[in-house]
């Protein structure tokens, strides 16, 4: 790949890195990454991968931008409210970097479409906000032998792991999704906005490490942090031989859409189970 003068300027800070160089930057420019979710995690992931020059970024999200998103979904701005998230994301990605080809999927990822969608990508990033889809992404990537990054945030905490075929998958640590009725209704928990940036950017770094082959990926490890104490912990794990999807006797051989918890402010008001956060 021949870089233009402008590209050499643009990516100079990567090229200067001994571990990356021109070869590494080429690998990034040839990379194809799918980001599931254009929200709290998807936003910083998309921004940093765009800045890095990832050649093809796929982004899937069925939602439109909501005012409450702007507290943390830094790829969306005030004028974007009510715009489809994938459109808003694509605009900003290309403003940062016209080199990037953005493929948008304005829909939800489901058991029916996941295998087809992920097949064209080198790496999948989970930037979703619910467990059914997190488990779906895990199962699909294990079945399709697709490396992926799992990520989740809540209140002041974040956790992430990276999967490559053969390493511990999300189900090795969490065998099955929590039942929807176990979730106290809704967005009561909240999340400190910057946490999304903390975790999402770690995921973006993992993608770049994967594409360039630099460093050690967060495989067979769960990185977890609590931003209140700024304590970061790495929990070692290994593939569980009893894992429902990647174990010796898998019980998950097909993909399903788990039942979603109903999650909206109205139902929260009716049930009155939780007192509002101060």
């Amino acid at each position, binding site marked *: 790949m021949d870089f233009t003068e402008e590209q050499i300027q643009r990516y100079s800070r990567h090229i200067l890195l001994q571990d990356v160089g021109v070869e590494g930057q080429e690998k990034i420019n040839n990379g194809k990454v799918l980001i599931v979710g254009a929200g709290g995690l998807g936003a910083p992931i998309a921004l940093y991968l765009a800045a890095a020059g990832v050649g093809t970024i796929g982004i899937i999200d069925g939602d439109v931008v909501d005012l409450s998103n702007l507290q943390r979904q830094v790829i969306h701005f005030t004028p974007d409210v009510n715009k489809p998230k994938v459109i808003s994301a694509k605009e900003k990605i290309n403003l940062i970097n016209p080199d990037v080809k953005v493929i948008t999927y304005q829909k939800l990822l489901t058991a029916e479409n996941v295998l087809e969608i992920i097949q064209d990508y080198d790496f999948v990033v989970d930037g979703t906000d619910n467990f059914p889809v997190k488990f779906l992404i895990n199962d699909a990537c294990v079945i399709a032998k697709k490396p992926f990054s799992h990520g989740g945030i809540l209140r002041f905490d974040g956790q992430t792991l990276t999967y490559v075929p053969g390493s511990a998958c999300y189900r090795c640590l969490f065998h099955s999704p929590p039942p929807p009725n176990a979730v106290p209704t809704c967005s009561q928990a909240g999340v400190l906005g910057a946490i999304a940036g903390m975790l999402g950017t770690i995921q973006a770094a993992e993608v770049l490490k994967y594409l360039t082959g630099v460093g050690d990926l967060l495989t067979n490890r769960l990185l977890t942090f609590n931003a209140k104490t700024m304590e970061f*912990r790495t929990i070692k794990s290994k593939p569980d031989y*009893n894992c429902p999807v990647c174990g010796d006797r898998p019980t998950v051989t097909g993909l399903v859409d788990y039942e979603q918890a109903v999650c909206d402010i109205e139902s929260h008001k009716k049930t009155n189970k939780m007192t509002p956060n101060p």
Partner: protein
Amino acid sequence: MKFKTDIRTETKRKRFSIQNKNKINSNKMSKISVNGKAQELETPISIAELIKLNNVAQPSMVSIQLNGQFVNRDDFADTHVSDGDELDFLYFMGGGQSSYQLTVKD
């Protein structure tokens, strides 16, 4: 059917005796670590009891690793910890949408 159940139980027992290398002594003080923090307590103690002791708010939602190995929820009551064991209590983190009262109260 009954025969198959017995085989499964036997296999479970063998697996735990491999996992819990230390013999379970009657009531002694042991040092373990939970989420990287040292705890001194009386053993033998089961994982189920340890969960209660640590005030885990939603015990049905916590995922446990004992010395780097996933422990099946069905085995919490039967799996005992001993001196030097390292446990990790893992919690679901889904995102801004879902909510769990998961904090371990200190």
